[in-house]
């Protein structure tokens, strides 16, 4: 083992009521891609916040050595000074500023407070080239997709003198194509001698690029696997993460599919702001009782818009078409009515639209079904607590209690809270939009089991996902969507990743 760039020794960090890190050790060599994996709430993000100085050095125990010297960071500025740059799980860009303005925010080139925009644009162009993003430096960041925003973040990191780049779940909300591009970029940076710590729940990606993998479980280092010799498999990593072998990634399903329960006919939706842009161009589909139906498609194909427009017109305008349940037309023109008819929509944007972050777990879980915990308009907090604890147990939400605020939960556990909230509405049609984004393998299995259980009870499920293996593993039938239309419908027996991708490509060609 050559020299080490970074070594963290015996890191222990506690929050009130939680020991998030317990004697964690990790060593990163210069120019290597070092993956950190572990279940939700294992402490990965916390460890990176310790490393980058978000948590100052007097708030934890343990040592950080960088370049062989002990270091104590009082804030992010100290770690950036050394070239340690972190890109957080949640992107931190200003949507109303341009790419160039974002990249040089807080670090503007120029003199005496006067920004030299010419220089900024020239340098931005270079940086964008380096990360392979073809966009003018003046584009507003808010107008870019998540994948491109991710690249802007990396360009921003490169604009500083970066030696160790930390990426916390960079591909969680990217589609396959963008993820692939990002991984290639990391390999390119590695060739330039920039080391990288990569946190991800997508183990196939980890295996593709990592030189070493450190596994964290319950806040402690379990092992560090060296990938140089090859021979490390996903199952091997999973064993380290969950502490046992996992025989299956998906529950063994025995579908009991009944009559058509939910049906949408000739559905048209126009863009929320631009009334002349048709987003959904006449879609018909149905879901049977006990059936899990998937919708595959690229980002921007209109999957979320479709789901939200059905869910009480939460998206769009000039919506036309029919929604039927058990053959009868139902009125789902407001979200309240949609919920009353037993429709639930689990959003893909858990922080922005799924959770009241500053509020307690229990109050988030009850929010969509306050009737279920109240009598005559009065909330029964006792009952509310019981309900939340029940879901907390069933879904293994890792927290110090149901009165903990959800901001302090790890990303995966936040997702479970959102799901719990909707399961508590006792839905008859559950619409899931990227339900396992940022969730670890163990928790994924738990969530799949919950979905399967719901289907077993005869409820209908509509699942939007960018992870094709997940659709193939869980669904009975898959619709393929492209540019506001369904371009294919496949029974899972006939479906494969290739066929789905081919359907998309064919549609794009004509």
């Amino acid at each position: 083992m050559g020299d080490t760039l970074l070594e963290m020794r015996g890191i222990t960090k506690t929050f009130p009521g939680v020991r998030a890190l317990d004697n964690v050790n990790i060593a990163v060599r210069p120019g290597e891609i070092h993956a950190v994996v572990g279940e939700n709430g294992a402490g990965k993000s916390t460890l990176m916040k310790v490393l980058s100085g978000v948590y100052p050095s007097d708030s934890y125990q343990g040592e950080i050595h960088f370049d062989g010297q002990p270091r104590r960071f009082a804030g992010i500025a100290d770690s950036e000074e050394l070239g340690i740059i972190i890109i957080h799980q949640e992107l931190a860009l200003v949507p109303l500023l341009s790419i160039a303005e974002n990249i040089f925010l807080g670090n503007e080139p120029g003199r005496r407070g006067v920004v030299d925009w010419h220089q900024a644009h020239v340098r931005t162009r270079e940086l964008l080239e380096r990360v392979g993003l073809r966009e003018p430096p003046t584009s507003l960041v808010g107008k870019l997709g998540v994948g491109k925003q991710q690249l802007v973040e990396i360009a921003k990191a490169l604009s500083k003198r970066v030696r160790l780049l930390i990426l916390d779940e960079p591909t969680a909300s990217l589609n396959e194509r963008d993820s692939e591009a990002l991984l290639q970029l990391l390999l390119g940076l590695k060739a330039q001698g920039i080391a990288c710590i990569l946190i991800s729940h997508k183990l196939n990606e980890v295996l593709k690029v990592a030189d070493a993998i450190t596994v964290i479980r319950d806040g402690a280092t379990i092992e560090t696997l060296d990938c140089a010799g090859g021979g490390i498999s996903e199952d091997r990593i999973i064993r380290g993460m969950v502490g046992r072998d996992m025989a299956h990634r998906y529950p063994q399903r025995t579908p009991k599919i009944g009559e058509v329960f939910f049906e949408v006919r000739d559905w048209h939706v126009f863009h929320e702001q631009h009334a002349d842009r048709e987003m959904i161009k006449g879609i018909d589909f149905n879901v049977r009782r006990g059936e899990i139906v998937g919708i595959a498609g690229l980002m921007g194909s209109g999957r979320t818009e479709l789901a939200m427009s059905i869910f009480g017109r939460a998206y769009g305008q000039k919506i036309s078409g029919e929604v039927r349940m058990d053959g009868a037309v139902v009125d789902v023109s407001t979200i309240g009515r949609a919920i009353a008819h037993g429709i639930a929509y689990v959003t893909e944007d858990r922080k922005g639209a799924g959770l009241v972050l500053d509020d307690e777990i229990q109050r988030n879980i009850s929010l969509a079904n306050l009737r279920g915990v109240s009598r005559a308009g009065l909330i029964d907090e006792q009952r509310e607590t019981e309900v939340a604890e029940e879901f907390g147990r069933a879904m293994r939400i890792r927290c110090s209690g149901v009165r903990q605020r959800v901001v302090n939960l790890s990303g995966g556990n936040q997702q479970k809270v959102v799901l719990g909230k909707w399961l508590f509405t006792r839905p008859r049609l559950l619409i899931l939009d990227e339900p396992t984004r940022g969730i670890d393998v163990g928790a994924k299995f738990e969530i799949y089991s919950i979905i399967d259980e719901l289907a077993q009870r005869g409820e209908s499920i509509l699942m939007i996902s960018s992870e094709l293996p997940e659709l193939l593993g869980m669904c009975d039938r898959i619709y393929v969507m492209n540019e506001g239309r369904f371009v294919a419908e496949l029974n899972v027996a006939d479906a494969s990743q290739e066929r789905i991708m081919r359907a998309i490509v064919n549609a794009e060609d004509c």
Partner: protein
Amino acid sequence: MSAVIASPQAASGRGYFKSHLRDYGMLLSLVVIMVLFQVLTDGVLLQPLNLTNLLLQNSYIVVMALGMLLVIVAGFIDLSVGSVCGFTGALAAVLMVQHEWHWVPAIAASLVVGALIGAVQGWFVAYARIPSFIVTLAGMLVFKGLSLALLAGQSVGPFPVQFQKISSGFLPDPLGGESLRLLSLALGVAAAAVLVLTEVLARRKALAHQMEAEPPLFFGVRIAAFAGAMVYLSWLLSTYKGLPNVLVLMSVLIVIYQFVTGRTVIGRRIYALGGNEKAARLSGVNTPRLAFLTFVNMGVLSAVAGLVFAARLNTATPKAGMGFELDVIAACFIGGASAQGGVGKVLGAVIGAFIMGVMNNGMSILGVGIDYQQVIKGSVLLAAVFVDVYNRNRV
């Protein structure tokens, strides 16, 4: 996997105090300020006459703070409350004095107009989606102007005796105590008893279900202090003229709003609206209607305050209500509400209003000029919010 949900431990005293610092901090600040002025004014502050005055002077601020708290928690602001307060008071005055209406329909008309004003402003905020700051800034100007026009620049009064009683009246005393208003005292004691009873029951229920509960010492001291203060204050007031009508009105409103925010579905939804509007909307909350209703409510409470204020002065002047919005908003923020919405408590706002009130009153007794009063009040507001934000960030 390890234990997923930790069972709630018996709260330790220090940990509990730390995590609930702000709730106790508020109360402590009020007590400290009261003691301070009690000493500085050589005991004038808590003399029965002055205490009565203090309550009367603050009643309308407290009433409006209840509505403002909901508005702020929902994520908005209302700058027009002072003007609306003045306008509705002026309206009642003109109806009673110039048009010789009976006082009951005049009050009703004022309240209805208050609701309508709230509805108009609420419509612009909730449905036209114009920022509340702008809508109510416009409202502030409009209703200030309208009061002037309505009163034609004159003071209008005096009012029928029954109307004046809203503010200048006291609870009758059928028990006929000579130097002590027994009914008033009895009410105070009864209220204290009810408080103790409900708190003890709630605590017992919480403990039975192993929910986090206050350590016994804190609980005992807090309840004893509250009940003691209630009995003591009502005794003080009883040695003068008894409980003012306004105090009764105010107490009833406080209890109602405390209950609505803490226990009801609609209260919960207002917090969700301010906490994350999108999430609330996707959870089936009719967010525009809820926002609209908080403004209607604010309008009604502004009218109540306007009536109380007019009755107290026994005349409506074009200047009535001027600057009230500042005291009302300050009360909410001193009381721990967050300008981002989603956070705030009714009792906090009430205590905040009294902190401002005690300072106003105490400084006036001390002869501090209106100039420095404002300087001090502004500094206290900033300091209170600073301490609050500082504590919240330090985890």
